[in-house]
């Protein structure tokens, strides 16, 4: 039950090459930071790093959910819309009841996301709709519903209670709430994926669906489960997003799903399913966060950002692929086949 099917060739070896990959990513991040620091001295200051982490926290929370979806060979394009809908619903509720507890707002957003995710999960798991089709359709339906719910209007900061805004502004031991929540999510799901039966079953379903069926793993339930969790995490992210930017709009987080998928893929989550680690995911998220944070610091036009991100993702995927091919080739050679 190690990271991927290649582990049959030799379990310890696969584990070593897996951590090599993360080491490589870490080295790349360090080199990148050094280069940026040389270009702009304000990059590695406490305040900028805190800023970077605040801005990356939501991405990290979403990346955890996306990782589980991708582990089952799926993909979820609807999360940007789910963020908008759950953020909008919770913001509208807070605007109507200013005395509402922030915790209740978070639960409300997560409930909205959970409903959306569950519906997608039913489509994918029960009716075998391809994930890309189901989530592409859901993306538009949910986005449309967001506009209908809000009647096209925005909810602005003056309509939000201080309690609601403090969700994203507050601090625990000097660390921003968002970062704390992201760390909690990483820890909880790191434990869940590695040390619980359900977590291991997600890997099993992704690395070989037929084998999972034959072994009596409730494959369809697990498929439903990952989309439902992805929805709930998107709902959480929606509330955090709206609290952070103090504004809920119909077009909130349009296209953000691409960033999230990018973070997961950069973090070494295999798009063919069954392989990926939380540690890699954290590094991938931070790398994407650095790219977003540092490009303006080194005077790269914000309009270049998307293309640069695209090329970095392409390079990461192709590098990953070639390394893997090389590893398989060497494994074959060693066994003299």
């Amino acid at each position, binding site marked *: 039950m190690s990271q991927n099917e290649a582990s049959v060739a030799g379990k310890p070896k696969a584990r070593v090459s897996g951590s090599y990959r993360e080491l490589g990513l870490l080295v790349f991040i360090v080199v990148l930071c050094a280069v940026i620091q040389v270009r702009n001295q304000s990059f590695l200051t406490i305040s900028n790093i805190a800023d970077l982490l605040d801005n990356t926290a939501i991405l990290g929370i979403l990346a955890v959910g996306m990782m589980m979806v991708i582990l089952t060979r799926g993909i979820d394009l609807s999360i940007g819309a789910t963020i908008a809908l759950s953020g909008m619903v919770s913001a509208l509720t807070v605007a109507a009841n200013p005395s509402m507890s922030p915790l209740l707002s978070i639960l409300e957003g997560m409930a909205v996301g959970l409903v959306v995710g569950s519906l997608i999960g039913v489509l994918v798991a029960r009716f075998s709709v*391809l994930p890309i089709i189901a989530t592409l359709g859901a993306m*538009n339906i949910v986005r449309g519903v967001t506009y209908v719910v809000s009647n096209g209007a925005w909810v602005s900061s003056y309509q939000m209670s201080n309690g609601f805004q403090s969700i994203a502004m507050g601090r625990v031991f000097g660390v921003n709430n968002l970062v704390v929540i992201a760390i909690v999510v990483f820890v909880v799901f790191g434990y869940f994926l590695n040390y619980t039966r359900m977590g291991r079953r997600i890997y099993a379903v992704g690395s070989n669906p037929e084998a999972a069926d034959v072994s009596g793993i409730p494959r369809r339930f697990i498929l439903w489960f990952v989309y439902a969790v992805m929805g709930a995490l998107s709902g959480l992210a929606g509330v955090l997003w709206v609290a952070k930017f103090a504004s809920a709009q119909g077009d909130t987080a349009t296209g953000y799903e691409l960033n999230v998928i990018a973070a997961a893929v950069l973090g070494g989550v295999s798009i063919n399913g069954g392989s990926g680690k939380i540690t890699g995911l954290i590094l991938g998220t931070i790398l994407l966060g650095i790219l977003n944070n540092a490009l303006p610091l080194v005077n790269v036009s914000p309009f270049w950002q998307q293309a640069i991100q695209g090329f970095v993702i392409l390079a990461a995927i192709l590098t990953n692929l070639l390394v893997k091919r090389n590893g398989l080739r060497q494994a074959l050679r060693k066994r003299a086949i």
Partner: protein
Amino acid sequence: MAERSIDVAQGKSLASKFLRWEWLLVLIFIAVNIVNTRLSPYYLSLDTFLGTPANFLDKAFLVLPMTFVIILGNIDISVASNVALSAVIMATTFNMGLPLPAAMALCLLVSTLAGWFNGFLLTRFKELSAVIVTLITMIIYRGIAYMILQDQAAGNFPDWFSFLGWGNIGPFPFILLVFILCAIAFGVLLHGTAFGRKIFAMGNNALTARYSGVRTDSVIQTVSALTGLMAGFTAIFLSSRMGSTRPNVAMGYELDVIAMVVLGGVSTSGGRGTIAGPLLAIFIIGFLNYGLGLVNVQAQVLLIIVGLLLILSVLVLNVRFSGRHRRPALGAGREK
């Protein structure tokens, strides 16, 4: 397996099965028009039927190659970004002094290359699924469009250019005539040539097709390049209709196009479909949008409707075909 080969061998049973789906589409089309007639007294006229399609035909060019792509068992979500990239390059080079015909040729060249690049990645790196390849190129193509034009618009096209999107030849809009020609070409290619049979064969079982001597890589690259070429057509007609181009044009077209293909009865797991179904679906969705526009339904509600149509038609088709034979997952168009 036996079931499948019988389907292919007995063209008649296959045809009769699909005719049913397409007759259903015809009925839906008629129903949409009856509703529209009820909504507006001015609706029922020859002008409506000839003139309205010009409003939605720009994206219809993408439906033709997307049908090929989905029959192959693949998907392409980069088409809208490809439209934006090639439109931006056409408008920018024109504004820099290139003659417009040359800029249009450049547009088609760029879009074809961008489409072919998807096919190149798919065939060169077979481990990658079409979803992820076209997702990456979707980011990159749109990203390059933003690099070129930032938040500016480019355009100032001459009058004859707007004729392409707005003009008529006799009673027929020019864009409708071009589209009919393209639809015939793609229909013949899919249903009347060996190339079309290869696409169906690969959609059913890419490995078998390869062992039977189909050069699968070349088929995938050709279909990808065709998709790019049609994205170029869309770019030209869209720019002509809008009069200028921005990097954010054609946002969300991939959903409309995929929804039309799927509503047209093309199976998302590959190997099944006709060109007639998606053609009908283009006009159903197009006239539906037009009719809803007549009664001032918000654009956002249209989003919901198209999304629901996509999911519902996949559900109906999945139920129809379930039990016939089990399908491999996405990416079935390519052997590993």
